[in-house]
């Protein structure tokens, strides 16, 4: 995540100048074994040197046994001192020229020396002996022998690179490059827990003068990486691999924190080299041939000057720049997931060894103020990946996201430093509040267990501030503030009344139906009654009329002519009223005539009827006692009614 590498480009150049490489730490005691070549053919002599630098008070110096080699020459002892850049160094060396007896790999153990009473040992050397090659053997033999001689002259004993830059005749360039330049990745562990720290160092080993540039940097997929700053320009150190000294440049040193479990791979790094090789031309060979290997032994160190060598031994050389691309091997890292059991609830990814402090800046404040809670986690481990510990803020505080401040020690390994989380808490509510203890857990890979740190709880006393946040309550101003509470007088009704489920609703729905029903019923009944009465009247009209006529007949007998005419007239009118369904008040001759006409009753019946009615009226208003006439009227009335009855029957 925090991979800050990808853009950064490393370019470093390496220039080895002939003959002037000096041990960086001249005053250090060093006891080393070096050989002119690690891989030799059978019957090929090589030189081995045990060099003790800055050793004072050497009381014994025991070389190892060379049981698989034949000592051709030696021991030749060298002793001397050199002053370089104002620093003095002394050395004491034993040289042997050896020849292998068998084919195979042999380890020559280091020599032992007693310096200042302490026994020290030089490093062992691995020699690989191959089958001899008749053609190659002869030309190779000479230059190989020449190397230690030269190194010895330079005083420091570290300048083999120079001569390795020389391309000898018959030597394969790619073979030589392969042997003398390579990349190595060093990791301090390959099996670790998720979040634990791992240090990866990418190194370039070279024995040749080269101009190198890094073309591909690893991306560290699945890791959080933190680079350690390297000196610029890069500084070379010296390291011996199998007794052969190499100049070593650290390309990149990175602290890695795996972010996931499983098998992760460290990507390789790629370096482009421009190797400057020196080609010897015939001249040099002659000179070398003239030198006697035994000469070394007698040579005075004062004589052995690099300049001397340069001037007299290699007058004719040719340079050749060879491009050479190398790649380091990818490395597999096995990342274990953190154990599940015993994982505290507050655990959120910290691995290492930490301490925690938590402080609040004040314990009494008003609601106008703000409170700051600072939680500092320091120690070593994945400091750069620490998550904020969860602070359980009680209600009544407004919490903001913590501010994070890092104080990570530069180039510390393991990564150490501190991370500070600053929580700003705004008290909202007056009263005594307790902020519970801050809890932080981490996994300690050394102890292989989770550990939990806990601060104290803080009791905060909050008083009501002066500022009532009126402005904040304004709806228009702060879109992020609450609309203030409703005051005022409310109508205190308990739960909402639902009209739709109240009986009143249904009562009011049914009521109009009832009313309508009642109206309809009444109307129906009235209609029925009216129609029914008319029917009856119609049906009994004859009877009523005859009854009335009977009454008239009595009056006739008694001689009450006025009553007789009245009754007869009433009988006729009543009959007509009932039979023709005409209200009594509406009766008129015209209406009766129309009605009868509508029923197709015409002719004599109608004229007789009207004659009868006229007669009655005349008799009523102009009384004249005439018994026969009255008799005639009576019988006429009876006939007319019965005639009409017949006609109206249908």
């Amino acid at each position, binding site marked *: 995540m925090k991979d800050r590498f990808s853009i950064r480009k490393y370019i470093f150049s390496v220039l080895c100048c002939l003959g002037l490489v000096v041990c960086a730490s001249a005053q250090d005691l060093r006891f080393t074994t070096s050989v002119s070549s690690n891989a030799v053919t059978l019957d090929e002599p090589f030189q081995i040197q045990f060099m003790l630098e800055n050793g004072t008070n050497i009381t014994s110096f025991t070389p190892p046994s060379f049981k698989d080699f034949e000592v051709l020459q030696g021991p030749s002892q060298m002793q001397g001192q050199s002053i370089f850049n104002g620093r003095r160094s002394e050395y004491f060396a034993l040289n042997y020229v050896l020849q292998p007896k068998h084919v195979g790999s042999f380890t020559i153990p280091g020599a032992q020396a007693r310096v200042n009473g302490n026994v020290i040992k030089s490093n062992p050397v691995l020699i690989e002996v191959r089958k001899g090659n008749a053609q190659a053997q002869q030309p190779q033999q000479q230059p190989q022998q020449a190397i230690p001689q030269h190194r010895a002259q330079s005083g420091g004993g570290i300048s083999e690179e120079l001569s390795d830059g020389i391309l000898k005749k018959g030597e394969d360039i790619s073979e030589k490059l392969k042997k003398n330049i390579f990349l190595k990745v060093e990791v301090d562990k390959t099996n670790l827990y998720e979040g634990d720290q791992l240090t990866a160092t990418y190194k370039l080993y070279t024995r040749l003068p080269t101009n190198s540039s890094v073309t591909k940097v690893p991306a560290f997929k699945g890791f959080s990486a933190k680079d350690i700053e390297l000196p610029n320009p890069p500084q070379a150190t010296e390291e011996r691999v199998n007794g052969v000294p190499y100049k070593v440049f650290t390309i990149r040193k990175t602290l890695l924190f795996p972010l996931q479990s499983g098998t992760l791979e460290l990507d390789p790094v790629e370096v482009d080299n421009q190797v400057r090789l020196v080609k010897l031309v015939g001249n040099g060979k002659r000179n070398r041939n003239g030198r006697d290997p035994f000469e070394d032994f007698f040579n005075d160190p004062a004589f052995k000057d690099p300049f001397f060598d340069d001037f007299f031994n290699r007058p004719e050389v040719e340079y050749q720049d060879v491009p050479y691309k190398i790649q380091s091997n990818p490395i597999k890292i096995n990342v274990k997931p953190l154990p599940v059991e015993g994982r505290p609830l507050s655990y959120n990814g910290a691995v290492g060894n930490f301490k925690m402090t938590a402080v609040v800046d004040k314990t009494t404040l008003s609601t106008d103020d703000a409170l700051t809670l600072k939680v500092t986690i320091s120690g070593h481990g994945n400091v750069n990946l620490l998550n904020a510990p969860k602070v359980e803020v009680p*209600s009544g505080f407004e919490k903001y996201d913590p501010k994070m401040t890092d104080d990570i020690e530069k180039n510390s390994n393991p990564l150490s430093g501190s991370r500070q989380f600053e929580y700003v808490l705004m008290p909202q509510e007056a009263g005594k509040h307790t902020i519970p203890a801050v809890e932080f857990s981490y996994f300690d890979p050394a102890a292989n267990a989770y550990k939990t740190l806990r601060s104290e709880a803080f009791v905060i006393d909050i008083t009501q501030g002066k500022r009532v946040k009126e402005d904040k309550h304004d709806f228009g101003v702060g879109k992020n503030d609450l609309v203030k509470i409703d005051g005022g007088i409310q109508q205190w009704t308990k*739960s909402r009344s639902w009209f739709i489920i109240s009986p009143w609703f249904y009562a009011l729905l049914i009521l109009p139906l009832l009313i309508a029903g009642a109206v309809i019923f009444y109307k129906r009944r009235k209609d029925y009654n009216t129609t029914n009465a008319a029917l009856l009247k119609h049906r009994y009209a004859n009877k009523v009329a005859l009854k009335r006529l009977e009454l008239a007949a009595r009056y006739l007998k008694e001689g009450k002519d006025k009553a007789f005419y009245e009754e007869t007239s009433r009988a006729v009118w009543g009959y007509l009223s009932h039979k023709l369904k005409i209200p009594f008040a509406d009766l008129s001759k015209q209406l009766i005539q129309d009605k009868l006409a509508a029923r197709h009753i015409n002719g004599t019946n109608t004229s007789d009827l009207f004659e009868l009615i006229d007669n009655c009226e005349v008799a009523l208003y102009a009384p004249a006692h005439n018994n026969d006439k009255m008799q005639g009227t009576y019988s006429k009335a009876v006939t007319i009614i019965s005639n009409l009855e017949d006609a109206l029957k249908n």
Partner: protein
Amino acid sequence: MRKGSMPGYKNIKTALLLAILLLTGSILRAQQALPQQRFDAANSLYQQSKFTEAAAAYQQLIDEGYAIKALYFNAGNAYYKAGKTGEAVFNYEKALQLAPRDEAAKHNLALANQKVNGFVDELPLVFFQQWWRQLQQLHKPNGWAVGCILFFWLVIAGVMLNTFLPGWKNKFLRWGNYALGALFALYLVMAIDTYAVANNHQSGIITHSNIKVKTAPDDNSKDAFEVQEGMKVHIADATKDYCKISLADGKTGWISCAWIKRL
């Protein structure tokens, strides 16, 4: 004498007891001040930034059955300030049920929802749903019911006039009756719908944080996802202990009904 005095004594005792009971009752009634006074007291607690106490006071009034928008709204505010998001959301939703067009309650609900982790806004309604909703808010629920009654009366009256009074018989009245009938039907549907919507209790608010939602109504079933305090959920189904909830984003699962406060 002694024998006679005993029952009298007893009578006095019972009378005393009664008096004491009555007294305490009246004292209790006196302590139980008028809701308006208690509401004001809670408001002043709120103004003094004692939100937890204010919330408790409001809650007491709510528990007694008072259902007033201002009460729910203020309770929501107090719970919000006291940091109880779930209760705040619940009370704002309640206030909005009582006054669906209250801007302040809508605003504060939106604020409270901002505090809800993983809050998913409900899907916007389709236009006709919006129209329906707006139409619903044209009247209060009781308004719909009253309108329903009114139109029913008018329809009946119109029909009667049309049928029984020959002088009123014309096509305008007939068409008027049809229109009144349609309005009656609409008001009846609306009255029933608003009642049903307000009383279905098919949604609720989650009251606790980090509740694991199960795939089946069973303690041993797999966890599907988590719900947080203050989330509004739809209750699609329920067994005795478990409720099937569905979220606005379509996720469904079962949680214990105890974690849901039904609206």
